């Protein structure tokens, strides 16, 4: 079963961190379709976070189609990360390298690039939440 951890200082909302960790585990093959995610009670208890935060993360995963809740039993992973997304990853990766090259030419250093990326990511996350 996956073990969650939280980074207080990352500036990323806890429920997003949980979602990311599930996605990462799926990507790495540590989680497969049919595996059970830890119960809301266990996650809340071991991380000392509000159970609603865990619920929010699990519901988000359900919405994305990555997991499904079986009432009275638990939440289970429904799909393994497919090859399609690996292809999408490669394409995005190439686009990103091109962008990095352009940014360097414009005179940005790596910290500037990180700042731009974080702002864009946060703005997108907020729009999602709305």
């Amino acid at each position: 079963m996956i073990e969650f951890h939280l980074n207080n200082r990352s500036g990323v909302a806890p429920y997003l961190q949980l979602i990311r960790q599930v996605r990462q585990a799926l990507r790495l093959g540590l989680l497969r379709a049919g595996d059970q995610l830890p119960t809301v009670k266990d996650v809340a208890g071991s991380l000392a976070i509000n159970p609603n935060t865990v619920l929010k993360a699990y519901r988000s995963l359900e919405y994305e189609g990555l997991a499904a809740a079986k009432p009275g039993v638990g939440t289970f992973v429904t799909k393994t990360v497919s090859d399609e997304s690996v292809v999408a990853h490669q394409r995005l990766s190439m686009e990103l390298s091109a962008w990095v090259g352009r940014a360097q030419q414009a005179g940005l250093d790596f910290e500037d690039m990180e700042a731009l990326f974080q702002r864009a990511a946060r703005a997108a996350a907020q729009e999602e939440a709305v």
Partner: protein
Amino acid sequence: MSSTTAAIEAHGLGKRYGHRWALADCTLTIPTGHVAGLVGPNGAGKTTLISLATGMLAPTTGTVEVLGGAPADGPDQLARVGYVAQNTPTYAALSVADHLRLGAHMNPRWDGDSARDRLSRLNIPLDAAVGTLSGGQRAQVALALTLAKRPKVLLLDEPVAALDPLARRHFLGTLADAVAEGGLTVVLSSHLVADLERVCDHLILLASSRVQLCGDIDALLAEHRVLVGPRKDTTAIERDHTVVQTERTARQTTMLVRLNGPVADPDWEAADVGLEDMVLAYMGADAAPAIAELTAVGGQR
């Protein structure tokens, strides 16, 4: 009792000691089903508010109701509310098991097995005298005792203030676990905002013995912004929104505001504010309103 009965409802609640008002004009509603964090500087009235809600103190003015009933008004009302006071007072000479028996004799609805289970999982010896336990262990015992009476509302007054970080984490973990079981509303006071951020989804902020903020944390954070802009006249902002704190330097003005609509002026850049910064701004603004003016580097108002 209707499903819309608030966990705690206060109207004009106040408590005076001699000439000093420990809590004044407190009107708030805390809905059920949440974990509410009660924050504020020392002396702001957090303990007073909780003590009024548990019936340990009688109000000087106003009223407070917990789950629609007057505090400590009979055994049923007492059974619905769980309370852990600051410094978790216990009978030092009595053992943990004795305290469990005390609870069993003083509460009709008592789940001693779950308490014993919880305590043994935490490796707390049941026959040790409570006075010999560490602060963290005592806090866990107090929490187990109050959860065993199966309350609907749990009031905790600075339960983790004297605990080391690990003990704090364990305590809040036990609390979150209990909340996850369902049917429990928690009001938890603390002056450590970082801890509250993890486990609370509701915030009540007291400063100078008054309620400054009360609401869902995400909603409150969404309403607040840090506005950064050139040093200029701020009357428009002050008129349209609620300014919590202002800092001016020779070239720049920074303000933490509670928005009342969009900010039209393009000169102002709005950034999100974190929970701790927002809370500190309210606490600081109240304590020393003039200091903000003096932080100008070589500047004057």
